[in-house]
């Protein structure tokens, strides 16, 4: 019974209340919104997107600790983030979920996750969920990649197989990162995947 209850726990922490549909995601070519909103990083420091973005391009990923889809992709997200941060791109992971709804998505949970996974880029709290709203993000994980001109060049999934990294046929985000880094056009600019709804704060 104890084992059963433990197994059930992550499920109980999954998606929660229904969210109104976002007004629409940021269109390709748009500039980054809410760049001066201070967000607390896992190291305790306040950061805003203006500080995070880099001339080579910037990757913003909305993710969280609890969502099974975010977890499936997590090691790939961290690997991509660490790799492209080391290549000079701005990288940030943002947790916009209300921890009252998903307790695993607490600040302490984020600190632990960043440590466990070896994230070498900021993992920050969108304390009002307004940054996620401004991006029009609806789920986790969801990536927004901006090019050297600060324009949205790619929006969507990490790749085409959340369930199994070994079976990925199209590594959408990696291809887009390489294109932005080499200042060439991103071939596939928008993709979708199934994911957990963002638990917006009311």
């Amino acid at each position, binding site marked *: *019974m104890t084992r059963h209850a433990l197994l059930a726990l992550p499920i109980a922490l999954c*998606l929660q209340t*229904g969210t109104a549909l976002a007004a629409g995601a940021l269109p390709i070519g748009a500039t980054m919104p809410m760049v001066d909103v201070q967000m607390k990083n896992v190291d305790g420091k306040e950061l805003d997107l203006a500080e995070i973005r880099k001339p080579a391009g910037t990757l913003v990923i909305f993710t969280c600790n609890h969502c099974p889809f975010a977890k499936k992709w997590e090691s790939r997200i961290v690997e991509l983030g660490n790799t492209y941060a080391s290549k000079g791109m701005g990288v940030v992971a943002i947790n916009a979920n209300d921890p009252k709804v998903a307790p695993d998505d607490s600040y302490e949970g984020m600190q632990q996750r960043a440590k466990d996974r070896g994230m070498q880029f900021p993992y920050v709290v969108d304390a009002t969920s307004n940054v996620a709203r401004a991006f029009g993000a609806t789920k986790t994980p969801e990536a927004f990649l901006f090019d050297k001109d600060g324009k949205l060049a790619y929006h969507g999934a990490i790749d085409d197989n959340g369930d199994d990294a070994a079976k990925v046929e199209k590594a959408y985000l990696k291809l887009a990162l390489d294109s932005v880094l080499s200042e060439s056009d991103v071939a596939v600019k928008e993709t979708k995947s199934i994911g957990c709804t963002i638990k917006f704060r009311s």
Partner: protein
Amino acid sequence: MLAALVLAAVASVPGKSAPPPSPAAAETILAEVRKPGAGAVLVNVWATWCAPCREEFPDVLHVARDLGPKGLRLVLVSVDFPGDEEAATKFLSSEGVDFPTYVRTGKDEAFVDGLEPQWSGAIPATFLYDSKGKLVRFWEGKASYPVIKRRAQAALDTKETP
């Protein structure tokens, strides 16, 4: 563990075990939606790992039971990961589902865009179609029984207007 088994046995309706969800691409779901004879169709996309989906599930079934006699057809689509089919079937049985349901196959993107381009892919997701198979409303995230019922009734009512 024994207590869990006993609970599961009590929760399920005797004699009603769910058939395993049939693998389906978006086209199969849409074909089911367009099959003649329904006054409206409600498609609910869910997964066993999704808490709001599980919470909403009884309300979706309740609405389908209420409005089924008035012509509402219910199409349930699991997006559980491959290998979790057994868990999905178990959950369906525990909810008293005794009719065919589906589990999505293929890539997420083809499924999401194939079903409805406006859908971001977040779940739970619920789609309401009129008697002609035209999408009249959809939403992402959990809704309550009265809300689902009101919207489903509105979808049924659209058949009155020529």
